[in-house]
C-alpha cells in the first residue's frame, strides 16, 4: 500500500515553503544569541514601536478627516502625537541604521536585509514628505511650491504633482504607508530568517588557543548560531517599546504641541500686499511670470527644463503633463465670472481679447511701469494716467475679486463639484513675493537650509540635511540646473546607501573603525577569557 501523498497544490506548496523558512520557533523565538547584549539592539524595536504609534495616530486623523485637526483641540493633540511619533521613528531609525552599519550587519547572506532596510528609510522619507505636503497650512504651501522645482527637474513632477493636495494626501495615507509597512515586514522576516548577525572575528590575525564552545572566536555569519543563548521575550519587548513611545509622544505632544501656521489665501495676500498681487497678476496676463515661462510640466516654453548634464533633461523628456496658461487660467477665466454680471468688465475683456498681440503688449508694458508707483484709494489701485486700454479696469476688478475671496474659488473651479487640486492657486501664490517674504521670516528659504526647517522652533525634516546641503555649496549654489543635478546626486547617493554591502571601500569601514568592539564587548571579553 503506497503512503499517502499530499496533493501538490499552489496553496500547499506555499504553506510548506513558508513553514520551512519560518518555523514558529524561528518566527517567534524565546531565546537569542548571548552576543545580543547591547543597548544598540533596542533601536530596531523602538523604530517599529514608533511606526505603530505613527500608524495608530494617523488612523485616528484619517477617521475624522483632513480638516479635523485644524479646528479641534483633541484633533490637534492627535496630530501632535502623529508628528512626535514620526520624529521618534526617524530618530530611532537613523540610530538603528548607524548601529547596523558599524556592525557590518550585511555579512552572511544578509545583504538583502540591509537593502530592504535602506529602502524602508527612503520610503519613510517620501512618506513623511507627503505628510508635510498634506498638512494644509502655510508649511505645506511653502514646501510644495519649493519642492516642485526639484521634482519637476527630475521629471517625476509630471506624474507626482506636489501641488495637488488630494493626490499627496492619498499617497501619504495609503500608497506610501502600504509600501513602507510591506518593506518593514519583509525586513523583519529577513532578520528572523537569517538571524541577528554574529560578531566580527575576535582577532583578525589568529584564533585563541582555547575556545569556550558557547563563544566561538570567529563565528561564521552565514551559519546559524550554535553558541550560547539567553532567554528573550520578543513580544514583551515590543509591547514595552510601544508603551514607552506612547508615553514619550503623549508627553511631547501635550507639552510642545505641533505647528499649524494658517495658510495664505489669495484673499489674504491681495488684502495684505495689493501692490504685489497686482504686479504678479499683471505678469501672469503678460505671460512673463515664473509660471508662464516655467517649461515642463506646465508650459511649452522653448529653452526651459533643467539639464542633468549637457542638454540631457528629464523634465523635457517627461513633457508637459500639467498644462497651465497663466493669462487665461489666472486672469481672463476668473474675470469671466464677475464679467457675466458686470457689462463694463465684459466689454473690457472683449476689447482685450480682440486686440492684436502688439497692442496688448503696449498696454501691459505701460501698466507694468505704472504699477511701480501705484497707490490705493479706498482699496482701489490708482495709477498715473496713461494708455492702458482695458487693462487697468481688468486689474482693478481682479484685485476686488481676489480681496473678496472670489479668486480663491475661481482658481479651484474646474467644472466639477469636488476640488482637491491646488496647482493653480499655489503657482499664482509662488509667483508673487508675499509668500516668499513670509517664508524668509521663518528661515524656510533654500539659502537658509529651508527644506530641513520647520515653522517656529519645532524640529523639522533634519533627515533632508544632505539634500539641502548641496544647495549651499558651489557649483550648485549658482547653477541654473541645480535642482536637476542635486536630484541626480541624491538618487546616486540613495542607490549607494542601498548597495553599501557591495561597495568595497564603504563595506570595509566598520572593520577599520572598530566601533563594533563596543557593541560586542561582553562577547569579546568572554572569548578572550576562555583563551587565557
Amino acid at each position, binding site marked *: 500500500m503506497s503512503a499517502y501523498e499530499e496533493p501538490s497544490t499552489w496553496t500547499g506548496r506555499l504553506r510548506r515553503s513558508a513553514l520551512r523558512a519560518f518555523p514558529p520557533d524561528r518566527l517567534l523565538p524565546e531565546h537569542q544569541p548571548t552576543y545580543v547584549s547591547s*543597548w544598540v539592539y533596542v533601536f530596531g524595536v523602538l523604530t517599529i514601536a514608533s511606526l505603530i504609534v505613527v500608524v495608530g495616530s494617523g488612523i485616528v486623523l484619517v477617521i475624522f478627516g483632513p480638516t479635523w485637526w485644524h479646528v479641534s483641540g483633541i484633533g490637534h493633540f492627535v496630530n501632535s502625537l502623529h508628528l512626535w511619533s514620526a520624529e521618534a521613528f526617524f530618530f530611532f531609525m537613523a*540610530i538603528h541604521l548607524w548601529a547596523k552599519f558599524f556592525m557590518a550587519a550585511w555579512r552572511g547572506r544578509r545583504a538583502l536585509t540591509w537593502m530592504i532596510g535602506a529602502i524602508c528609510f527612503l520610503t519613510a522619507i517620501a512618506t513623511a514628505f507627503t505628510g508635510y505636503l498634506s498638512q494644509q497650512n502655510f508649511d505645506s504651501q511653502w514646501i510644495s511650491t519649493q519642492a516642485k522645482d526639484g521634482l519637476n527637474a527630475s521629471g517625476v513632477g509630471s506624474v507626482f504633482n506636489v501641488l495637488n493636495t488630494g493626490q499627496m494626501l492619498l499617497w501619504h495615507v495609503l500608497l506610501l504607508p502600504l509600501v513602507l509597512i510591506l518593506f518593514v515586514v519583509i525586513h523583519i522576516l529577513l532578520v528572523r530568517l537569517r538571524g541577528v548577525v554574529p560578531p566580527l572575528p575576535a582577532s583578525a590575525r589568529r584564533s585563541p588557543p582555547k575556545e569556550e*564552545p558557547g563563544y566561538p572566536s570567529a563565528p561564521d555569519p552565514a551559519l546559524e548560531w550554535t553558541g550560547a543563548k539567553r532567554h528573550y521575550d520578543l513580544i514583551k519587548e515590543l509591547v514595552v517599546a510601544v508603551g514607552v513611545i506612547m508615553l514619550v509622544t503623549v508627553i511631547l505632544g501635550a507639552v510642545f*504641541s505641533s505647528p499649524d501656521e494658517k495658510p495664505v489665501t489669495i484673499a489674504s495676500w491681495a488684502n495684505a500686499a495689493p501692490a504685489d498681487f497686482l504686479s504678479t497678476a499683471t505678469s501672469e496676463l503678460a505671460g512673463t511670470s515664473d509660471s508662464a515661462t516655467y517649461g515642463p510640466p506646465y508650459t511649452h516654453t522653448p529653452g526651459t527644463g533643467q539639464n542633468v548634464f549637457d542638454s540631457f533633461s528629464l523634465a523635457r523628456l517627461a513633457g508637459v503633463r500639467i498644462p497651465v496658461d497663466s493669462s487665461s487660467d489666472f486672469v481672463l477665466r476668473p474675470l469671466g465670472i464677475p464679467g457675466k454680471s458686470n457689462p463694463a468688465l465684459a466689454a473690457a475683456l472683449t476689447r482685450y481679447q480682440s486686440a492684436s498681440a502688439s497692442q496688448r503688449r503696449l498696454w501691459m508694458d505701460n501698466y507694468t511701469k505704472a504699477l511701480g508707483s501705484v497707490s490705493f484709494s479706498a482699496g482701489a489701485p490708482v495709477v498715473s494716467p496713461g494708455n492702458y486700454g482695458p487693462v487697468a479696469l481688468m486689474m482693478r476688478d481682479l484685485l476686488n475679486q481676489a480681496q473678496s475671496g472670489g479668486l480663491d474659488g475661481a482658481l479651484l473651479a474646474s467644472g466639477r463639484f469636488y476640488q482637491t487640486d491646488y496647482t493653480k492657486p499655489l503657482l499664482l501664490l509662488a509667483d508673487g513675493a508675499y509668500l516668499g517674504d513670509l517664508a524668509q521670516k521663518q528661515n524656510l528659504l533654500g539659502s537658509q537650509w529651508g527644506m530641513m526647517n520647520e515653522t517656529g*522652533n519645532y524640529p523639522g525634516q*533634519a533627515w533632508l*540635511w544632505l539634500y539641502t546641503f548641496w544647495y549651499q*555649496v558651489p557649483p550648485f549654489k549658482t547653477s541654473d540646473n541645480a535642482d536637476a543635478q542635486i536630484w541626480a546626486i541624491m538618487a546616486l547617493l540613495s542607490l549607494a546607501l542601498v548597495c553599501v554591502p557591495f561597495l568595497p571601500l564603504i563595506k570595509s569601514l566598520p572593520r577599520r573603525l572598530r566601533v563594533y568592539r563596543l*557593541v560586542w564587548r*561582553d562577547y569579546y571579553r568572554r572569548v578572550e577569557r576562555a583563551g587565557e
Partner: protein
Amino acid sequence: MRVRHKPSDCRSRGAIRARLSLLRASPTGLYGVGAIASILGGKPHYIHFGWFLISVANLVVIVLMIVVFVLALVLPFPGGREKR
C-alpha cells in the same frame, strides 16, 4: 510645567471664565501647557556659522541622536539567564 495663578485669581466667575478660555485657547487642549507650546511656536532661533545655518531645534535633535547612540554603545546592558 504649570502656569501659576494667584489664589485670588480663582475666586471670581470672571477668573474661572478666563481659565476656561485659556483651556480652549491651548493648542494642545491641555491646561497650562499652552505656554510651553508657544515657546516652540514663537520666534525661531537659529545658529549661523558662515554658510552653515541650523535651527536650534534641529541641532538639538541631531545632538540628541548622537548622544543616545554613544550612550547605547557605552552603557552596560543588563544580562539575562543564559541557556546553552
